C-alpha cells in the first residue's frame, strides 16, 4: 500500500513537471515564424533580431506580449517604443532596472513626479557628461556585468 502511494505521488509529480517543462520548452524555442499574429504585432520592433535572441530572452519577451493585452493603448505604445532598447540591455542591467522599478513603485506620487522631472533634466546633459557621471558611479558596471 505504501509502495502504491509512493508510486502515485511520483506519477503526479512527473506529470506536473512534464507539463510545466513542455510549456517552457515550447515558449523558449519558438521562432518568429511560429509566433501568432498578436505576439508578432507586439514584438514587431524585435522582428529582425528575434531569431538571434537566446531562448530565455525570447521567453521574457513572450511574457511581455502576454501582459500587453491587459494594458491601456497609451501604455501599449510606451511598451512598443521601449522594447528594442530593453531587448539590447544586458541581463544585469535588466535585473537592476527591475529592482529600481520596484523601489520607484513604492514612492509617493510627489516623489515620482520629482524623479520624472529630474530624468528629463538629466536627458539635457550631453552623452559625454552622462558618460562621466556613469564612470563616477561607485558601483560602475564591470565587464563581467555587461556580458
Amino acid at each position, binding site marked *: *500500500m505504501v509502495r502504491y502511494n509512493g508510486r*502515485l505521488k511520483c*506519477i*503526479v509529480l512527473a*506529470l*506536473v513537471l512534464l507539463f510545466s517543462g513542455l510549456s517552457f520548452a515550447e515558449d523558449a524555442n519558438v521562432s518568429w515564424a511560429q509566433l501568432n499574429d498578436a505576439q508578432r504585432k507586439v514584438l514587431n520592433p524585435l522582428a529582425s533580431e528575434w531569431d538571434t535572441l537566446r531562448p530565455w530572452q525570447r521567453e*521574457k519577451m513572450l*511574457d*511581455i506580449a*502576454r*501582459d*500587453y493585452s*491587459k*494594458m491601456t493603448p497609451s*501604455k*501599449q505604445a*510606451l*511598451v512598443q517604443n*521601449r*522594447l528594442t*532598447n*530593453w531587448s539590447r*540591455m544586458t541581463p544585469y*542591467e*535588466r535585473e*537592476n*532596472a*527591475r529592482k*529600481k*522599478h*520596484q523601489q*520607484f*513603485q513604492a514612492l509617493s506620487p510627489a516623489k*515620482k513626479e520629482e*524623479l*520624472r522631472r*529630474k*530624468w528629463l533634466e*538629466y536627458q539635457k*546633459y550631453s552623452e559625454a557628461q*552622462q*558618460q*562621466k*557621471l*556613469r564612470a*563616477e*558611479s*561607485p*558601483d*560602475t*558596471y564591470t565587464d563581467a556585468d555587461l556580458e
Partner: protein
Amino acid sequence: MSEYENKTMRTLESDMSQNMQQANAEAQVANAIVGLLDGQVQHIDAEFAGRLSTARGLAVNRLVERQAQMASAHGIGRSGNVLQLFGGHVGQYLGHHRFMSFMLVGAAILIAFFAAEQFGFNNNLEHSDAFLLASDLPPEAYADKGFDTWLDTTAD
C-alpha cells in the same frame, strides 16, 4: 419484627427455594444433553465431521469479514484512506475504489498547483517586465548608474 414482616420473609424464602430447584433441574437436563452429544460424537463418521469443520470455518471467516467492514466504515481503515472519513456509503464506496480516490487526490493536487500559479501570476503582474516598460520612467532611467550618481550629487 411484626407479623406482616415475618409473613413476607417466609414468602420470599419459599420463592427463592423454588427458583433454585428449577435452576438445578435445568442444569441437570443441560448436562444430560451435553453427555449425550459427547457420547454420540465419538461415533460420528469422518464425512460428517469434515462437513461440520468446513461449515464452522466458513462461518468464522464471514464473521471476521463483517467485523472488519464495520470497523472500516466508521473510521479511517487500516489503509489510512482519508476519503473513508466521509463515512457511510460514500466512504465505503471510495474505500473500495482506491484507484478512484487516488485519481481525486491527484486531480486536487493539480488544481491546487494551477490555482497557485494563477494567483502568483496575478500577484506579480504589476512587477512584470511589460509594466516596467510602460512605467512613468523608461527602463534606461532605472538602469543608468550615471543618473543615480547625478541624483546623489543634486540631493547634496
